[in-house]
C-alpha cells in the first residue's frame, strides 16, 4: 500500500472513531437534557404584602432608622408614619403663596427636615421670557428645617454652573446634605447655600448610601465610593460595579444595616433582594424578584427600608409599598408554574397574575407578552415565536386571544373547548350569556374563548344628523345632511384613513363571510363605497393642508398616525368638534355618553364644546352586521396545558366579580365594560363610595375630592343594560380578512381602486389564503 493510501486508511479509522464519539456525546447530552429532576423542594422564602398608604399623591418615601417613614410628593403634604402606624401630616400652608409650580426631587431627613427643588410659576409670557433669556433653567430650592420653617436656598459655588439641576438628595448621618446632578456629586451647606462638587460621575446618581464615613453613590454604570472624613475618593469596589452594570433594568435601591460588627448593605431591584457584607467579595441573593412585587415591571423601586433582619419595606413608583417577610411555610421555589401569554401587554392580566400569585404561593405565575416596547419585533414575528413554542410542545396554560386569529388556533387543536367550564356560569346567569354565546365558532359550534370585557358601538350627535342612522347607508346619509349645513370643518373624527376603518370595520366585518365561509363581495363592495363616500365628505370641508396639519399635530403628540390604537380618538367626548361622533363605548365612568355634561361643569374641561343647535341623540351604531360588540381580553385555555387546573382557576379568577370590580377600584377605567352583570351594576352604582374615592369623583363630600361627578342618567343606564342584553355578534380583531380589507381599503380611499376593484382584490388575496 502506498504511503498516501495508508494515511487515508488511518484517517478513515480516525474519522469513524470520531464520528462514533460525537454521536454518543450528542445522545448523552440529549439524554441528560431530557432527564427529569424530581427532588424535594426545601421550605421557606420571602413573600410580600401590600402596605396601605395614608393617602394618594406621594412620590417619595424616606425610611427612618426607627422603623417609621416619611412620605412626600408634589401634590401631598409631608406625612410621617411612625413605627406604630400613627400618621401625622405637616400642613405647611406657606408654599401656596411661594410661587411653586412643580416640585421635583425631594430629600427628607430622619427628623423631618426637607429639601426640594422646584420650578417657579410664571404669570405672564414676559416674565417667562425674561427668565428664559437668562439661559439658566435651574431649579430653585427650598430647605425646610425640622421645625417646619422654610428657607429659600440660594445655591452657589465654584462648580455649581448654570443649568445644573440637583436631584437625589440625601441627608448623611453627619447631618450634611448630598445631592447629584447628571455629571457630579455635590455637598450642600443648608445654612449658607454653598455647594461644592465632590467628584464627577458619568450619568445621574440615583441612590446614596452611607456606611460609617464612606458614601456610596450608585447609578446604572458604576458604584462610587467617597471617604467623607478624608474628603477623597476611594478605590472602586469591583463587586458593586459589576452589580450595577448587570442590573440596569429599573432602579436599584439601597439600605444599610448593622451586622455582627460589620455593616451589611442590602440592595433591591427587579431581580430580587440582595445582601452584601461590606468589604466582602460576594453579593448574595436572598429573595427572588420573580415571586415578589419587586419583579413587577410596572413598578420601579424607589426606596428600601430594613425593619429587622427578616423584614423589609420597598416603596415603588406609583405610590405603592410592600412589606417583605420571610415565610417558613412556603416552599422555597414554587412547585408549579402557570404560564399566561398575550400578544400585547394587558394590565388586567398582569394584575390578575399578582392576585393569583398571592392566592397560590406554591405557584409561579409567568406572564409573557409577544410584543413589548418599541423594537423590531412585529406582530408576525411574535406569532411566529409563539407558534414555535406551541409546535415544540411548550404550550402556555392560558392564552389571551386578543388580536389573534382564534379560529385558526381552535382548528389546530391548540385551544380547549370551554363549553363545559362555562356551563355553571350559564346556570347562575351571572354573565351576559348572549355575549358568551356570540363567541361560538361557526364551524364546530363550540366556544374556545370568553372575553372579560366588551365595547359597544355607539353614535352620538344632534338629532337632525344622526336620527335613524341604522346601517352604513344611514351613516352616509347623516353625513350628507351635516355636510350640507356645515361646509367647513371635519364631520367625523377621523384624521387618518386608518381611523375611519377603526370605526367602521368592527360593525361590518362579521357580515362579510357567507355561511359557506366564502367572502361576500357584494357587501364588501358596498362597504368600500360607503367608506369612500364618508372619507370624501369628510375631506370636502377640510382640505389637504388642514388634514395634514391635523395629522401632524397628532403625530407630534406622540401618537402614531398609521397605527392609531383603538380608543385614542374614538372616545365619545368630543361631540361638537365633529358633527357625528362614532365610536365605541368603553368607559362607564364619566357621564357615559356624556350628553348631559357641559363645558362649564369641568374644571379642566375640553375646549372644543360648541353649542348644540338641536337636541342630542345617541344609539347603537349599526353597520352591515347586527348587534356587534367588540370583545376584549379574550381568555383561552390550552388543550395541552401543563397545568390545566391552574389554567382553569386562573380563568375563574378573571371572570370573578373580585377581578372585574377590583381592577376598576384600582383606578383603571379604560378597556371596556365587564361582562359580569353584578360587577357592571356595582361599577355603575352611584353610591359605590370606594369606586368614587379612587378617581376623585363623587356625589358626596369625601375629603380631598374636588371634582363633581356626572353619573349616567337613568335613561342612559337603561340603554346600556338593553344594549348589553342584545349584543350577540362578536367582532374580533386580528383576522386575515380584516388585514387585507384594510390594506386594500387604503387604496380605495385614495381613489386608486374603485370599490368593486377593491373588493375583487381582497377576494383574490383571500382565495390564495384559502388555498394555502
Amino acid at each position, binding site marked *: 500500500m502506498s504511503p498516501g493510501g495508508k494515511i487515508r486508511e488511518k484517517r478513515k479509522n480516525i*474519522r469513524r472513531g*470520531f464520528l462514533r464519539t460525537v454521536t454518543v*456525546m450528542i445522545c448523552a447530552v440529549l439524554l441528560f437534557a431530557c432527564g427529569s429532576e424530581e427532588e424535594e423542594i426545601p421550605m421557606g422564602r420571602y413573600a410580600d404584602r401590600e402596605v396601605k398608604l395614608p393617602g394618594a399623591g406621594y412620590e417619595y418615601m424616606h425610611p427612618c432608622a426607627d422603623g417609621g417613614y416619611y412620605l412626600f410628593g408634589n401634590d401631598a403634604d409631608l406625612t410621617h408614619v411612625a413605627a406604630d402606624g400613627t400618621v401625622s401630616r405637616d400642613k405647611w400652608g406657606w408654599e401656596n403663596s411661594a410661587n411653586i409650580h412643580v416640585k421635583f426631587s425631594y430629600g427628607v431627613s430622619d427628623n423631618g427636615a426637607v429639601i426640594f427643588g422646584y420650578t417657579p410659576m410664571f404669570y405672564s409670557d414676559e416674565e417667562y421670557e425674561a427668565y428664559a433669556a437668562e439661559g439658566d433653567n435651574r431649579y430653585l430650592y427650598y430647605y425646610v428645617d425640622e421645625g417646619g420653617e422654610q428657607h429659600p436656598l440660594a445655591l452657589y459655588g465654584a462648580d455649581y454652573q448654570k443649568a445644573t439641576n440637583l436631584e437625589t438628595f440625601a441627608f448623611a448621618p453627619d447631618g450634611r446634605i448630598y445631592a447629584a446632578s447628571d455629571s457630579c456629586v455635590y455637598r450642600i451647606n443648608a445654612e449658607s447655600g454653598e455647594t461644592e462638587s465632590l467628584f464627577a460621575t458619568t450619568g445621574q446618581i440615583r441612590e446614596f448610601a452611607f456606611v460609617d464615613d464612606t458614601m456610596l453613590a450608585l447609578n446604572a454604570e458604576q458604584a462610587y465610593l467617597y471617604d467623607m472624613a478624608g474628603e477623597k475618593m476611594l478605590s472602586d469596589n469591583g463587586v458593586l460595579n459589576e452589580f450595577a452594570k448587570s442590573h440596569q433594568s429599573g432602579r436599584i435601591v439601597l439600605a444599610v444595616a448593622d451586622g455582627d460588627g460589620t455593616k451589611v448593605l442590602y440592595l433591591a431591584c427587579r431581580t430580587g433582594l440582595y445582601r452584601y457584607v461590606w468589604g466582602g467579595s460576594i453579593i448574595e441573593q436572598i429573595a427572588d424578584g420573580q415571586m415578589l412585587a419587586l419583579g413587577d415591571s410596572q413598578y420601579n423601586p424607589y426606596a428600601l427600608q430594613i425593619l429587622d433582619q427578616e423584614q423589609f419595606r420597598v416603596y415603588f413608583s406609583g405610590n405603592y409599598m410592600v412589606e417583605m417577610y420571610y415565610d417558613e411555610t412556603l416552599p422555597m421555589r414554587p412547585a408549579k408554574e402557570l404560564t399566561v401569554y398575550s400578544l400585547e401587554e394587558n394590565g388586567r392580566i398582569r394584575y390578575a397574575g399578582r392576585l393569583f400569585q398571592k392566592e397560590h404561593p406554591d405557584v409561579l405565575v409567568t406572564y409573557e407578552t409577544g410584543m413589548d416596547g418599541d423594537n423590531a419585533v412585529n406582530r408576525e414575528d411574535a406569532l*411566529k415565536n409563539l*407558534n414555535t413554542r406551541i409546535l415544540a410542545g411548550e404550550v402556555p396554560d392560558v392564552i389571551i386571544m386578543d388580536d389573534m386569529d382564534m379560529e385558526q388556533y381552535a382548528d389546530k387543536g391548540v385551544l380547549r373547548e370551554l363549553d363545559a367550564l362555562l356551563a355553571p356560569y350559564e346556570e347562575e346567569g351571572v354573565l351576559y350569556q348572549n355575549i358568551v354565546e356570540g363567541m361560538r365558532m361557526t364551524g364546530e359550534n363550540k366556544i374556545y374563548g370568553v372575553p372579560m370585557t366588551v365595547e359597544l358601538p355607539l353614535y352620538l350627535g344632534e338629532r337632525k344628523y344622526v336620527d335613524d342612522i341604522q346601517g352604513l347607508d344611514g351613516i352616509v346619509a347623516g353625513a350628507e345632511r351635516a355636510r350640507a349645513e356645515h361646509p367647513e370643518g371635519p364631520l367625523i373624527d377621523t384624521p387618518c384613513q386608518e381611523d375611519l376603518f377603526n370605526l367602521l370595520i368592527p360593525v361590518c366585518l362579521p357580515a362579510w363571510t357567507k355561511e359557506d365561509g366564502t367572502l361576500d363581495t357584494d357587501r364588501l363592495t358596498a362597504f368600500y363605497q360607503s367608506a369612500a363616500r364618508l372619507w370624501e365628505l369628510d375631506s370636502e370641508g377640510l382640505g389637504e393642508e388642514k388634514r395634514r396639519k391635523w395629522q401632524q399635530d397628532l403625530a407630534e403628540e406622540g401618537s402614531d398616525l398609521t397605527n392609531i390604537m383603538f380608543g385614542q380618538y374614538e372616545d365619545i367626548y368630543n361631540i361638537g368638534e365633529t358633527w357625528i361622533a362614532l365610536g365605541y363605548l368603553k368607559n362607564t365612568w364619566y357621564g357615559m355618553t356624556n350628553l348631559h355634561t357641559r363645558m362649564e361643569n369641568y374644571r379642566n374641561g375640553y375646549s372644543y364644546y360648541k353649542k348644540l343647535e338641536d337636541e342630542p341623540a345617541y344609539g347603537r351604531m349599526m353597520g352591515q352586521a347586527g348587534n356587534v360588540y367588540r370583545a376584549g381580553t379574550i381568555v383561552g385555555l390550552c388543550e395541552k396545558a401543563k397545568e390545566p387546573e391552574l389554567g382553569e382557576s386562573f380563568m375563574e379568577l378573571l371572570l370573578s366579580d373580585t377581578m372585574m370590580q377590583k381592577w376598576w377600584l384600582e383606578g383603571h377605567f379604560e378597556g371596556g365594560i365587564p361582562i359580569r352583570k353584578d360587577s357592571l351594576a356595582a361599577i355603575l352604582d352611584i353610591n359605590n363610595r370606594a369606586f368614587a374615592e379612587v378617581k376623585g369623583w363623587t356625589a358626596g363630600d369625601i375629603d380631598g375630592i374636588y371634582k363633581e361627578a356626572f353619573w349616567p342618567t337613568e335613561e342612559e343606564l337603561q340603554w346600556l343594560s338593553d344594549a348589553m342584553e342584545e349584543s350577540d355578534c362578536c367582532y374580533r380583531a386580528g383576522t*386575515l380578512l380584516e388585514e387585507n380589507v384594510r390594506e386594500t381599503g387604503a387604496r380605495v380611499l*385614495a381613489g386608486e381602486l374603485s370599490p368593486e376593484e377593491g373588493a375583487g382584490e381582497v377576494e383574490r388575496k383571500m382565495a*390564495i389564503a384559502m388555498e*394555502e
Partner: protein
Amino acid sequence: MFLLPGFSGVMLFYLLPFFEVARRSFLKAGNNTFVGVDNYSAVLENGAFVLALRNTLLYMAVGVPLLMGISLLLSLLLRNLALRRRLVSAMLLPMAVPAAVMVLTLQILIDRQGVINGVLTNVSEKMAALPVFAAIDYLNTEWALVVVVCSFLWKNTGYMVILWLAGLAALPKEVEEAAQVDGAGRWQRWHYIIRPGLSGSFFTIGMLSVLQIFKSYREVWMVAGSYPQEHIYFLQHLLQNWYLKLEFDRMAALTVLLSLVLLLVCLLLQHEKRF
C-alpha cells in the same frame, strides 16, 4: 480529521434539526399522528404552492443571471483599479443597512406617490412633447416583480462582486500577462484564460445568488405584506403563512422536497465536474 469538529456542529445544529423536519413531514401537525405522504400530496396539489413555485422560479430565472452578469462585468472592470477597495466597499453599503430602513427608503422611492413617480410626472408635465405620465403603482401591478428584482440587484451586487474578485484574484497572473505579451486581445484572454479559470466560481456564485434570493424574502414581505401582488407571492410567503397557521407539517414536506431537488442538482453538477 479537519472536517470533524465542524461536522459535529453541523450535525447538531443543522442535520439533526433537518431530520426532525423530515420526521415531522410524515406527521400531522397538532396531534402528531402518522399520516404517510398525505402532507406531500397536500403540498403538491396546492394551488398556492404552484403559484408560489412558478413565481419563485421566474424570480430566480431573471434575478440570478442578471445579478451574476452585472457583478461579473463590474468585477472585471474593477480588478485592476487602484480604487478597487473603496468602490467595492461603497457597493456593499446596502448590505449593512438594517432591512427595515432599507425597505423604507425603497418605499419612498417606488410608492405610487413616491419620489420616482413624482419625478416622472414632473418631467412629463414640463415637456409637452412627452406623453402624459400616469403614476404607476409599482407594487400592486405587474411591475412588482421588476421592483423586487431591482432591489435584489441593488442590495446584492456588491456582495457578488466581492466573490468574483476573490475568484479572479486566484487566477495565476503570469499566464494572463504572458498571453498579453503574446498579443492576445481582451476577448481572447477572457475566452481562453479567465472564463475557464472562473468555472468553479460560477457554481459557487450561482448557488450564493440563489441563497440571496431566498434571503431577500424579509424585505419583500416588509414592503408588500403576507399577501402581496400575485407576481411576487413566493415560496417563502407560503412557508411563512403556513407557519402562522401552525401548518408545520406542510412546511416540512415542502422543505424535504425542496432539499431533495437541490441535492440532486448539486450532485449532478458535481458529477459533471463543474466545480
